[in-house]
């Protein structure tokens, strides 16, 4: 395929390309200041998280309420390895991913045999246990005091004879670093969803019985999905730890899981572009609400009131999200209508 044959692109492709170019150029426009860059880094971080979470509810149709557990595992893996062993960011990233994936397999293998509801509640329990562990095992994690003194991300050019660049307080460098991570995540997700693996997941999501009949091993494919999702959660956690340099357990509470779930529901379950859009919208909205709520005399955390309402309204009116994909939309929306039609037909025949 010749990627320069422009006629093959749809309008959506040009929009995506435009967004990418805009994101690359943003730091050089007059809009850019420290606050804007910080918000954008946050958006990119949540994009990785949302893309990672999307694998389980979006691609497999299973509700995962404990995603933040893997985020926390990744962050503490990175934090501890940096503080105790001084490993480089680029070594830690895959190590965190592997650790996340291991926990994903350990948790997923016994529980993914069960129905979706049980799975949801087990993941919730798991993430609570992770937070309890981090809070209580003070010998390892320093507990609620937080783990300080984590080095910022670095780019090591010494093997080329160049310097080691520490991205400390360097929003611009971190901005491009995390953008690169988003692009890698996006590339992986894009390739996976068009692979044999992705097709198997979609089959499971659309109809488990039919998928089994086609010879898809449900448990294996679900565990793979859960492990991949966990690995990306852990990567995001590792980046987070190196970026903020101080981590504490209260960054990994259930609220975070819910926030990320909101993003993928708003953007469109199963649509990688949609969940990125959802992340961008909700992080920006969060920043806006942070300014507005105190003016109304409300505590800052009450912004979750809107997110909760948003979820209920979305499920009622547009359950497949802002950028729906056809399969999810068909399932989520027309079930009731299809049944109604069936009853009517039966009624008239009788």
């Amino acid at each position, binding site marked *: 395929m010749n990627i320069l044959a422009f006629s093959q692109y749809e309008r959506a492709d040009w929009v995506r390309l435009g967004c990418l170019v805009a994101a690359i150029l943003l730091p050089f426009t007059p809009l850019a200041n420290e606050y804007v860059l910080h918000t954008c880094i946050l958006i990119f971080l949540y994009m990785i998280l949302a893309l990672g979470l999307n694998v389980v509810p979006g691609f497999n149709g299973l509700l995962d309420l404990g995603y933040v557990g893997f985020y926390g595992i990744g962050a503490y893996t990175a934090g501890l390895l940096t503080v105790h062993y001084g490993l480089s960011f680029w070594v830690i990233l895959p190590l965190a991913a592997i650790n996340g994936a291991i926990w994903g397999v350990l948790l997923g293998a016994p529980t993914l045999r069960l129905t979706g509801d049980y799975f949801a509640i087990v993941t919730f329990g798991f993430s*609570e246990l992770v937070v*309890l562990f981090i809070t209580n095992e003070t010998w390892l994690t320093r507990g609620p005091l937080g783990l300080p003194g984590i080095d910022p991300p670095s780019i090591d050019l010494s093997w080329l004879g160049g310097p080691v660049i520490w991205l400390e307080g360097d929003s611009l460098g971190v901005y491009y670093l995390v953008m690169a991570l988003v692009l890698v995540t996006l590339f992986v997700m894009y390739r996976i969803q068009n692979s044999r693996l992705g097709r198997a997941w979609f089959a499971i999501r659309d109809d488990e019985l039919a998928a089994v009949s086609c010879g898809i091993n449900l448990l294996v494919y679900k565990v793979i999905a859960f492990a991949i999702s966990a690995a990306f959660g852990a990567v995001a956690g590792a980046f987070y730890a190196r970026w903020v340099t101080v981590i504490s357990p209260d960054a990994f509470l259930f609220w975070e899981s819910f926030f990320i779930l909101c993003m993928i529901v708003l953007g469109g379950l199963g649509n990688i572009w949609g969940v990125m859009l959802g992340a961008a919208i909700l992080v920006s909205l969060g920043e806006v609400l942070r300014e507005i709520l105190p003016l109304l005399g409300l505590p800052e955390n009450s912004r979750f009131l809107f997110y909760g309402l948003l979820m209920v309204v979305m499920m009622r009116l547009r359950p497949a999200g802002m950028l729906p994909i056809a399969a999810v939309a068909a399932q989520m929306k027309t079930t009731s209508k299809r049944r109604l039609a069936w009853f009517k037909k039966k009624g008239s025949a009788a």
Partner: protein
Amino acid sequence: MFLELLINGITLGGIYALIAVGYTMVYGVIQLINFAHGEIYMLGAFFALTFISAFNMPFFVAFALSMGCAAICGMLLDVVAYRPLRNSPRLAALITAIGMSIFLQNLAMIIWGSRPMPFPQEHLPAYFNQTAFVVGETPISWLQAYIFICTIVFMAGLNLIIHKTKVGKAMRAVAQNKTMAALVGINVNQVITVTFALAGALGAAAGILVGAYYNSVYPLMGYIAGVKAFAAAVLGGIGSVPGAMLGGFILGIAEALGAGYLSSLYRDGISYAVMIAVIIFIPAGLFGKIIRETKKSM
């Protein structure tokens, strides 16, 4: 020590049992984990607190009134949030349940503030903190005895409703097969709403008792208690009312003993660990049957 922990555990267990019954009843009729149930429990406690401190109502009047209000909340929850999604995939209903839970939590936080509020002790019956009787060397307060009696009475009442009344029969029918129930003339939606009302009332009772027992009511109280009670429902076998009662007591006792002998830091962790272990090793629970997904998972 052991006896004291055991008594604490039974008190706590009774409360978990009351909440767990709400989860299990709703799951029985519509196969939905009603995540917002913990929030109804929290609202019940706040209602009672408000009735007592703002309107100077006697404790028992406030208790009954809050149960009624929580029942209405439960019905509203069903009608507004869940009924439109009755035929939607499970994922949609679960996400709505989570959304409602978070919404109600934050609503309570906005209305009553996020800091724990003490239960007005001067309005509670004075004998609550006096010793009712002594077992071994451990004194049991009237409040503890009252919690235990309440649990037993409500459970017995619930059993009567389920097994001896027409509504109860309709509930059992709907739990077995919604289509068949509709065919024999049962108003399925109405029965489901009544189930939510019953669950809400029992949850509120638990919330008020906890508020009085620990002397603190706060918006996040439903979040942890809800999950623990769900663990109790799972332990008993979800969908089974006697199972939920037994599960509640077992979990309460396990938690009290675990906190006493193992580590109080992992107090909440014990419930989560029990829940995960039960789900992995005996997913049917003590009294339940293995649930097969009748609908597609999404």
